[in-house]
Every structure is written in structure tokens, then in C-alpha cells.
């Protein structure tokens, strides 16, 4: 059984020191008309490189671009689709952060790539970092997408045709399936689809699974063309225990779970087992308190024998943007300590 250290998604865009304020200051200067969009792109690139470097330095083997360019998990994708207008702010689950809410003026349709360029940039940036681990450990980029059900659930609707949740989830799913295909053709080997909304509103299970199907088909098409592509589903910001057995049956390559809401989830997973690799969100991505590596390691040891698929991903319970920068870095380093303590 291989235990891979993986980031779950976002990374803080700013820190307290002046060199970590680059993006924040540039955005403010662009807003004031004192800098250009080219300056903004440079700042985003610089902070993305830093985020990738910090993850690699901490020993993360499946890292992300930190979602540094994302205004929020919803409008970054929805805002690039035709038929969508971006509206005011709404609280994002229980995070005390806010997202800009999409309004469907028509059917949301993909006009072009959403994050393919971001993925390519991250791969190039990673390629330029001397990890000191070449030849021993493979470090790869994971691309994150917010899932069609969550996008649909958090959208407002003006177009009556998009009023049924099924219709808008289906439309978002078609757009995201095309993105999965494009990412696969660009060499992406691991895509994480985030669906935090489904464990909040379990009554929509049918809509959720239907919306996931086009993404699965896109993955299969990419694989048929001879490429390796894995699609993971991550659900966080709530306790997934009541829906675990249903989640475990989804035809994805890995299932990421947030273990920080309810201690009973460990018992549930240990009892039921998992037919596929799991993302073990055992380190709280939203609290600065550092967990005891040995305590978490004991939990990992309990779960690993129950997981089929020869691997599991050890990571934070959610993206790390909810922590201060130094807190996020400390959580990533903790992951390495936990793995060292497993069976040790």
C-alpha cells in the first residue's frame, strides 16, 4: 500500500511578509488603474510558482497550483462560461469566506478552455524546481475543478429553461466534461472534482450522480485514446459519514473525505472498507492547531488495510487557503511527519 502525500486544493495567496504581498498589492494597484492586466498576470505567475515550490519543498507528491488565480471556487469556472453573469457575494459554506454567485442568463456553455493553461503553467513551474527527489519520488500536478452539482446548486437563475436543478447541473456537466477531455489531452493525469454541496443536500443524490456521469465518460474517452487519467471526487465542509456507502460506490478513481467534522467517520470507513483509493483528509485544513503526527498515524494505520487499490492520499481536509500562509506550510510539513510515523 502506497501512501501518497497530496494537497487538497488551494494554498494561501498572500502572507504577512512583504514578498508574499505581491499579488494582493498588484490587484489593488490594478483596481486603482495604476497597473495593467499584464502586471496582474506576472504577479499571479510569481505567487503560483511560490505555492508550487512550497508544496514541493514540504514533500507533497501530488500538488496543485494553489488555485492562486481563483477569485473563488465558483466564479472562477462559471465566470468563463457563456450564458453566465457573475453577481454579488454569498458566504461559502461555513468558511466565513465569500464567493461571487453566478446567475444563469442562459445555458452555461464552454467557449474555450477554463483551466488548461493554468495546468500547463503549473507543470512547467514544477519542472523548473529542483526537488532533490528526482529519480526516487515522482511529483505530479493535480488539477482541481469544482463539480457540476456544486456549481449548479450555488447558481442563481434568470433563464426559465435553467430553473430545474437537473437542467443547470446537466449544462455545467457538459462544460466540465469538455474541460476534463481537454485537460486529459494536455497530459493531465489526475483531476480532482470538488463537490462539497452534495454532503450538505443529500436529497439531490440523483441529480449529483447524473451530473457526474459526463465527466466519467470524458475520463474514459481520454483513457481510450491511450492516456492515463484518474478522476477523484472530493467532498468536504461537512460530515460525509451518513452518505459514505453511497459515495464509496461512485465510479471514480479516488474518493477524498473530510475526517475533521465527526470522529465517527473513521469507524464508518474502517467498518465498511473502501473499494477504491481514498483521500484521507485527516489534517484540519481550517484550523491552525497542529495535530499530533503519531495520533494521526495510528488512524492511518487503522484505515490503510481497509482500502483497496494499493494506494491512499494523505492530505488536508480541504484547501489550505483558509489558513495563514505559515499555518498552511506547517500543515503540509505535518503530512510528511505523519507518513514517517506510520508503521514506524
Amino acid at each position, binding site marked *: 500500500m502506497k501512501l501518497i502525500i497530496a494537497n487538497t486544493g488551494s494554498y494561501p495567496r498572500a502572507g504577512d511578509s512583504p514578498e508574499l504581498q505581491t499579488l494582493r498589492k498588484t490587484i489593488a494597484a490594478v483596481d486603482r488603474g495604476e497597473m495593467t492586466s499584464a502586471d496582474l498576470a506576472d504577479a499571479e505567475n510569481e505567487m503560483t510558482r511560490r505555492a508550487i515550490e512550497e508544496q514541493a519543498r514540504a514533500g507533497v507528491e501530488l500538488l496543485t497550483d494553489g488555485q492562486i488565480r481563483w477569485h473563488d471556487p465558483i466564479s472562477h469556472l462559471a465566470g468563463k462560461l457563456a450564458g453566465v453573469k457573475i453577481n454579488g457575494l454569498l458566504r461559502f459554506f461555513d468558511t*466565513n469566506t465569500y*464567493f*461571487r454567485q453566478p446567475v444563469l442568463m442562459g445555458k452555461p456553455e464552454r467557449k474555450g478552455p477554463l483551466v488548461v493553461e493554468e495546468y500547463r503553467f503549473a507543470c512547467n513551474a514544477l519542472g523548473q524546481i529542483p526537488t532533490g527527489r528526482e529519480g526516487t519520488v515522482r511529483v505530479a500536478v493535480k488539477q482541481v475543478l469544482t463539480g457540476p452539482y456544486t456549481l449548479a446548486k450555488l447558481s442563481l437563475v434568470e433563464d426559465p429553461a435553467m430553473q430545474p436543478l437537473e437542467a443547470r447541473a446537466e449544462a455545467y456537466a457538459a462544460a466540465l466534461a469538455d474541460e476534463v477531455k481537454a485537460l486529459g489531452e494536455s497530459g493531465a493525469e489526475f483531476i480532482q472534482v470538488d463537490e462539497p454541496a452534495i454532503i450538505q443536500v443529500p436529497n439531490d443524490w440523483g441529480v449529483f450522480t447524473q451530473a457526474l456521469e459526463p465527466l466519467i465518460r470524458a475520463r474514459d474517452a481520454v483513457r481510450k485514446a491511450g492516456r492515463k487519467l484518474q478522476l477523484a471526487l472530493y467532498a468536504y465542509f461537512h460530515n460525509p459519514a451518513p452518505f459514505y456507502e453511497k459515495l464509496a460506490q461512485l465510479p471514480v478513481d479516488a474518493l477524498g473525505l473530510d475526517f475533521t467534522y465527526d470522529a465517527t467517520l473513521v469507524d464508518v470507513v474502517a467498518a465498511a472498507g473502501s473499494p477504491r483509493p481514498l483521500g484521507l483528509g485527516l489534517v484540519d485544513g481550517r*484550523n491552525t492547531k497542529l495535530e499530533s503526527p503519531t495520533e494521526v498515524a495510528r488512524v492511518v494505520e487503522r484505515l490503510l488495510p481497509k482500502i483497496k487499490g494499493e494506494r491512499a492520499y494523505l492530505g488536508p481536509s480541504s484547501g489550505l487557503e483558509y*489558513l*495563514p500562509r505559515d499555518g498552511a506550510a506547517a500543515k503540509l510539513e505535518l503530512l510528511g511527519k505523519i507518513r514517517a510515523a506510520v508503521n514506524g
Partner: protein
Amino acid sequence: MTMSREKLKKLGLELPLFPTTSVGSFPKPDYLVKARADFNKGRINREQLSELERKATAFWIEKQEELGVDVLVDGEQYRGDMVAYFAEIIPGFSKGGLVRSYGNRYYHKPIITGAVSWPGPITVEWWKYAQGLTKKPVKGMLTGPYTVMDWSFNEHYSDRRTTSLALADVIRKEVEALIAAGCKIIQIDEPALSVRPEELPIAIEAMHRVTDGMNAYFITHACYGAFEHIYPGMLEVPVDNFDLEMSNSDLNMLNLFRSQPFTKDISFGVVDVHTHVLEDAEKVNERVRQALTILPKERIWVDPDCGLKTRTVEEALAKLRACVEAARAFRN
């Protein structure tokens, strides 16, 4: 007469029908924004900053009186974030690093690193100052224990309930101090109330610790949440009045109140604070009319959806005026 009207009367408060108030914060005048930045850079001292905070507080008291608001607030000219303000004063908290709120807005999210305790009066001097400027009642303004817990990192307490209750004990002492100073209406904001519906019992238990046996009229403010998941259970929060953001959600909450009766007084948000657009009188009046379809007039207070600090001074005044005019129209 409703129970809460009787309570107000016993407290010596004779309020008109449709009492007008505001949720708490007002925008800071430009000179105060600059002074806060200067203070942070060490260019002016605490007393110089406080002088300007008092000046801005007096400005807002005067403006509320001019407009004819019934229950006043001090405008929170001396506060930044509603949780960080208390965390900077209450022992047990440390200042955290920068965390993003949204877009390009960041704040220092507090960290609970030790046992919290009441350091002595936190808001009482400001309340006394503001109340000394007017004969109308000024609300005491606090942030609730559940919200302070939810909006802080916690490295000390074992779980969220224990944290909330420890904070409740601190906030109760502040309530006692406000009442001892003469404050009769105290608002304890819980905007995080709906974020984890399964934790509503914790928020209720913590509020009991704060308000039980206390002789004051209590209001709590909640906003921008999924109230459908906590209604009608939220009515168990032991306060007299729920101050709710109604307009931003197109009065959707009225449907909930139709399904199960709303049993408390309401401070009914009749203007949206997140838009520069000023609603016309007809729109504001229609919102009050809608409130009257499900709530008796004795239970309705009129105010903006939320704190007005994100608006300009002129916009805030115009939105407050719209509240006052709507209330007057319905009294007549």
C-alpha cells in the same frame, strides 16, 4: 400588548410602533479611515486616534437623531472586524496571520491559544459615551459566542461546544457590565448561526449562558445564511428580537414564517446594504406591507438588512432615512 412590549415598558422604554434602528456599524468618515492607517503605521498615538473615533461617534449619534431613528447605535467607529475587535481585547486570543475573506480582502483571523477570560468592561465606556450624547436609547453591541468561536482558530479548547461556552461566560460578564451602566437594549450578533445547522443547539446553549436572568431586552442579528435549515429551531435562541436580513434574499424568509409562525419580535431589514442603489419609498413600504401579512404590527421593528459600514456616508444616511420614512408611513 405583546410580552416583549411589556418587557420594554418595564425597562422604562416606550417605543412607537415600528421602532426604527440600525444593525450596528456605520461607515467611517475619510478622516477616521486615514487616522486608523496612520495609527497602524505609528504616525499617531492611541489618544489621537480615540479623539477622532469620538468625533465620528458623535457625528453618527447626531445624524441618527436628526433622521428620527428610535433606538440608536454608536456606529462602531472604533472597531474593525466584529470578531477581531473583541479578540484583540479578550485574554486567551493571539493575533493570527492574514487570511482571505473574499476577492482581495484579507484580515487577521484570531487564534484562541489559551483560556479566555473577561478583562473588565470592553464596550461599556463607548456605550456610556454614545448614550451621554442622546436621550434616546443606545443599544449595547456585542458579538455572540458561537460566532466568535466559528470565526476564530482554536488551538486551546477541545471542541466547538466547550469553546462557545467559555466565550459565553466572558460575554455574559460584559452584558452584566453594560446593564450595570444603564444599558437596556443589548444586541448580540450571531451571523454564523446557520453555518452548521447541526450545531444550532450549541449556539442556543451558549446564548442561554449569556442572557439567562439578565434584565435587558435582547436582540440578535443573523444574516446571509441558509435559514431554511435552522428554522423554526432558531426561535429557541433566548432573545426577544431577531434582526434579520430580509431584503437581500427577496423576503424569501417570509415563506418560512408562513410554514411555522415566527414567535419573536423582528427587526425587519427593509433596505439592502450590499447595493449602492437606494430603494424607492414604494419598494421599502411594500417590504413592510409584506411583513405585516405574517407578523402583528406590535412585533415589527424596521431597519437595514445589515451593518452599513460598506456603504458611503451619504448612502448610509439615505438608507437609514428610507427606514425612518417607511416606519412613519405605517404608524400613520
